[in-house]
């Protein structure tokens, strides 16, 4: 078996605040293999975002070790290994969709020609071809979110970190984007770490579901999904699906009860 893409050993992270220390992560160990789609689920404030931020070198753990592609998160960041998608689309209102997607490319010094080539390709991938010249506020919330995913895909990051990317969208749009995300993942073979609050979403998308408990944030359960790679939306009404969902819910409820 190849080395894991992300390997966390016994991670600790304590924030120093005015009200005293906050233990956001405690003894977190997890391996993510290449091509995995890992969902993180857990009650609010349990440290999901923090864990993702540690992976992306946006936060320094206060204990334990973590490697990404075999090197430190900082080196991985310098090597531009990450595409990070935040909860809100976070597009720049003063840039067109095309310009928004090419922003990381500009920063990374791609040539003009390559920029436009890549922008066209990823906008196509998220079905936004033809919207290059629009401004973000001229698009619906779902389209904005797809643009922000396109932005994270524009450069060749191996690892896609997604922090509740669909949290603000309505159920129908969300279903649709979930389907598309799965297709995309299948096509690009990226490794994805995905934070969500929704049990069906986690179960529908993932190859591996990580259930976390509230402060201090700990991993209470890691569930490998028995679902096939090919997942029509109806799969959510299948007994396998409901069983996994049930297990996730139980894990969550147990966490809530302790907290």
């Amino acid at each position, binding site marked *: 078996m190849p080395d894991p893409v992300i390997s966390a050993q016994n991670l600790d992270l304590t924030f120093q605040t005015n009200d005293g220390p906050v233990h956001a992560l405690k003894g977190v160990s997890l391996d993510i293999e290449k091509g995995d789609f890992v969902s993180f689920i857990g009650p609010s404030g349990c440290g999901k975002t923090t864990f993702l931020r540690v992976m992306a070198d946006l936060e320094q753990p206060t204990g334990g070790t973590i490697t990404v592609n075999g090197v430190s998160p900082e080196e991985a960041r310098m090597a531009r290994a990450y595409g990070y998608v935040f909860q809100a689309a976070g597009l*720049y209102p003063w840039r067109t969709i095309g310009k928004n997607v090419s922003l990381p490319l500009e920063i990374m010094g791609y040539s003009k020609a390559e920029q436009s080539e890549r922008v066209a390709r990823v906008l196509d991938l998220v079905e936004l071809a033809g919207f290059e010249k629009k401004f973000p506020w001229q698009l619906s919330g779902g389209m904005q979110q797809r643009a922000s995913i396109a932005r994270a895909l524009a450069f060749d990051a191996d690892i896609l970190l997604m922090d509740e990317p669909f949290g603000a969208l309505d159920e129908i749009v969300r279903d649709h984007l979930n389907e598309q995300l799965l297709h995309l993942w299948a096509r690009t073979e990226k490794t994805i770490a995905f934070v969500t609050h929704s049990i069906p979403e986690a179960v529908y998308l993932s190859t591996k579901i990580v259930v976390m408990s509230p402060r201090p944030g700990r991993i209470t359960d890691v569930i490998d999904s028995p679902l096939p790679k090919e997942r029509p939306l109806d799969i959510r009404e299948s007994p396998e699906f409901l069983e996994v969902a049930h297990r996730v819910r139980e894990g969550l409820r147990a966490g809530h009860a302790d907290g």
Partner: protein
Amino acid sequence: MRNLVPVLTVVAAIFAIWYLAAIWLNAPWAYDKATRAGVELSAVELVADTWAQDKPKLPAPHQVAVEIWDTTVEKKITSKRSLVWHSWVTLSATLLGFALGTGLGILLAVGIVYNTVMDRSVMPWVITSQTIPILALAPMIIVVLNAVGISGLLPKAMISMYLSFFPVVVGMVKGLRSPEVMQLDQMRTWNANASQTFWRLRLPASMPYLFASLKVGVAASLVGAIVGELPTGAVAGLGARLLAGSYYGQTIQIWSALIMAAALAALLVAIIGLIERIMLARMGMA
């Protein structure tokens, strides 16, 4: 345009009050003259007199209007008696001071946003600086600058700058800090350097704040330029005009210079508003 009717109503009300106030304020002098001349004033004569005095306590609107007309349209704009010429003198100092103040304000704001030491130690003094009555200092500033060989437009512009940099600092600090943590983190995940973050994120994000401050700043600049004109020898400019009017008790001249100054300020603010609209529309932010 929705505001047209209400604005006109309010303006009409102001003119009515103005005319009444002119009667009330100028009546004593009319009576004083009448008693010394030993005549009785009828109500009509009184009103007519109060609206037509040479040096009234409060000139009637039409007197001011006539004065403005005479000194703008009727005079060659190169004439020293033309209000347009004086406005231009003040405007040039205003614009220079405004440019300097905006520059200084942005520089300070960048320093404050990027440097904790500056943030914590300089910011309180920026506020204190505005509690110093610059008008009291103006004559000294002019003299001291003169002593180091700076004269002409620049000393006036410096006072203008002192008044206009403050709103720009405050607004730009807010604006440069307006990107959310998330947007800054995003830059970090792309491994963007400080200058890329500044030019591509912080600066564009600060534009609406900048324009709001510029509107306040330009009005402050104009006040600064006018104040700066007093101690430069009351030679030329709206400030000199105000002063000369005040020195000779020419209230009509004072009021016309005042109205002109307010109109100039309104014009400058409107121009900035226009640039803002064009600019933000082109940036897709309006």
